[in-house]
């Protein structure tokens, strides 16, 4: 599989990454080289193999339903680029 310019643009949009027009060919080349590398996988028949998401095939542990966190707003918002009245501010959202 090989990516063309418009596919690179589509992926960049899905990932919300601004990419300079002039850099797109280089990205396309790099991505195509990587895809060529990973396409080796397609030569192996894995139809009988169960996918492995966790190397220990471990299962989820449960947490007791208890409130353990207290208000840390001031501390947690110290890094925020823009806040007002305790809210994080972003450019106007149109629904």
């Amino acid at each position, binding site marked *: 599989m090989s990516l063309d310019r418009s596919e690179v643009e589509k992926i960049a949009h899905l990932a*919300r990454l601004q990419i300079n027009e002039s850099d797109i060919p280089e990205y396309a080349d790099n*991505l195509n080289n990587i895809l060529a590398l990973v396409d*080796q996988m397609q030569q192996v028949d*894995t139809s009988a193999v*169960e996918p492995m998401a966790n190397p220990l095939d*471990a299962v989820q542990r449960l947490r007791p339903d208890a409130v353990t966190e207290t208000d840390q707003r001031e501390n947690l918002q110290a890094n925020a680029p823009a806040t007002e009245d305790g809210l994080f501010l972003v450019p106007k959202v149109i629904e």
Partner: protein
Amino acid sequence: MHNKTLAELAQGLANGAFSSVELTQSLLDRITTEDSRYNSFISITHAQALAQAEAADVRIKAGDAAPLTGVPIAHKDIFCTDGVRTSCGSKMLDNFIAPYNATVIEAFNRAGAVNLGKTNMDEFAMGSSNESSFYGPALNPWDTDRVPGGSSGGSAAAVAARLVPAATGTDTGGSIRQPAALTGITGLKPTYGRVSRYGMIAFASSLDQGGPMARTAEDCALMLNVMAGFDPKDSTSIERDVPDYSADLDKPLDGLKIGLPKEYFSGDIDPEIQSAVQDAIKQYEALGATVKEISLPNTQLCIPAYYIIAPAEASSNLSRFDGVRYGYRCEDPQDLEDLYKRTRGEGFGDEVKRRIMIGTYALSAGYYDAYYLKAQRIRRLIQQDFVAAFNDVDVIMGPTTPHPAFKIGEKTNDPVAMYLEDIFTISVNLAGLPGMSIPVGFANGLPVGLQLIGKHFDEARLLNIAHKFQQATDWHTKAPSDV
């Protein structure tokens, strides 16, 4: 003082040969003057370090000291450290002062260790050379024209340059073992789930694992004693007792069965690395081990599987960096779309963007089965190779890397060539196994690492195997001539 190991420094503190404040001040001075040559630190935490050292001295005087109380170390800048910038090597987090401690940092604080600062790393741990750091590459103390490896290159360089006795690292596809090999130090990647990932900024969640980097196996054991353990805040953390990793270091190796995968000794491998590794194996035979050739037939597939799974997880893990709640935000965003795209376009470097794009593509509609699910199936095949091999042997050995440290800039334009350098380390992450790298010689004057791979939760055994080698040889004591 800087030539002493962690164990020796702990001893000196315990018997009052020097105070933690004296030790800390002397290492801070050394870092201040020497690190301009290596760029191994992103942040040096002078004030916090001295405050911790003072507190440690009080604890030591009160007879309340733990083994690492008062010992200065450094942390990879991927571990969130309360009140300290935690950048993950990225412009995206250049202004991020972590408001909480990673579980690993918390553990070292409880142990009374002193944090000298945060070490350089590839941006978001994506890289094998440290060249993707927003702060410029860390340099290899053995040859500052060369890379120290990555992504934990700053920790490796700092330990190799004797700026710190030990440091933490993280390893997703070899990021502890490969820089350890390239800088001639000892590094351990524990079993997946052994060390908490809470507060360790995620690259690829199912592969990431924190671990120690030091000059000796003995020091790695001391570090791991603090780092390892169950953490209820991490769902992938394993609820299992932690042994004393220092207890069995001296156990004899008689009868140890070593497996040598034929796939790790063929193909494009530097001949001097080949011979250094062969010599190390002979040393093990002299220590009572037996050697057997084994096969890990799916080795070649580990790179393709890894370069799907890791970017896929990363593409999702890094979506939180959106300029809304913390971190970099682009100037004067016109609308929401502009905020996202420019923040992320400007805040992430090229390698990170490349991997996000690969991962996004691999997960997108129509490709999920062919890429992501396929890679997860191959991942199981790779793990099954190891399970089969460990039926016959206790430990698997081979070179950590096919080549010694390469020149800065040599591979930056060819990501695939860089990825291929990870061939021997990646499988270990895919299978969740513990792996170590120890120095076993030189190739063209550059350090060579031997990789030891153990069964799940066999960290104590690996440390024992590494320690016995270091008792019998002196490769781990070698330092760059100008250090």
